[in-house]
């Protein structure tokens, strides 16, 4: 891809991720465990890993978290999201390098590591390790949402490849 096109794609992906985060914050689903959510914004990260360079995806993740954090969240929520977002980014890049995992596996690994990262920071903030009791439900949730995001990403990628990237 040409440089201009890359910049445009990155900007669009950040905007898209922000909209996803915002829409998600409007849906009042209470899973009973704090921090449990669908993670629709992860859709952008997962698909991005397949047609952008990893550093670009990392910038998208960080920008999305900072911008949505300043607009709809608070200082603390940025910290949890950054921990989860950056950890899941690196885990996904790593899993992608391992042979045999499809986009669903990458997305599952991302969902799980996001939850683990956030929970770890939360446990450090309140200085109470009893928060590990939240880990099992968060692991299962991460797997389920990761799988869902993976299936969606796959479909989105076929569309992106077919209509947007062929003209290069």
């Amino acid at each position: 891809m040409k440089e201009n096109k890359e910049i445009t794609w990155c900007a669009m992906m950040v905007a898209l991720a922000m909209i996803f985060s915002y829409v998600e914050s409007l849906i009042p689903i209470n899973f009973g465990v704090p921090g449990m959510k669908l993670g629709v914004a992860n859709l952008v990260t997962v698909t991005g890993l397949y047609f952008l360079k990893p550093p670009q995806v990392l910038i998208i993740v960080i920008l999305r978290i900072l911008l949505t954090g300043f607009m709809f969240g608070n200082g603390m929520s940025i910290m949890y999201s950054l921990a989860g977002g950056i950890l899941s980014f690196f885990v996904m890049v790593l899993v992608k390098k391992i042979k045999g995992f499809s986009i669903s596996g990458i997305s599952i690994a991302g969902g799980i590591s996001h939850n683990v990262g956030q929970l770890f920071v939360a446990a450090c903030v309140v200085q109470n390790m009893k928060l590990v009791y939240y880990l099992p439900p968060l692991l299962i949730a991460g797997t389920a949402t990761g799988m869902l995001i993976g299936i969606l990403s796959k479909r989105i990628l076929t569309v992106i490849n077919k209509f947007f990237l062929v003209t290069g």
Partner: protein
Amino acid sequence: MNKKDGILGLCVTGAALLMFFLMGMNKAEDADQVRITVDGETYGIYSLEEDQEIEIQHEGNHNKIRIESGKAYMEEADCPDEYCIDQGEIHTRTQTIVCLPHKLVVEVINENDKKEEAIDAIAK
């Protein structure tokens, strides 16, 4: 989804179920007190057996915890997300109420928990 993805998913789910099981064993022990910690420091220990209302004022943050018929719940909080109120009633050892913005944790404990801590304190 291919084979390796499935294996990853199953392994994590299996690990989570195992943890649930271990937690269930831990849960079986009697617990009759709650400990409230703010910013990592113990604010107070309260019995679950008597109904009471605990008001916490810390650095301008307000939380109200109520203990009623052996269960504790967050009744009021002025944190932005109010997740702590959504977390509902707790009464077994593996349950906690966390108010992240206020760095407040309510956990259910029993006598053994306190003994373990005394040992930790000596070790330090």
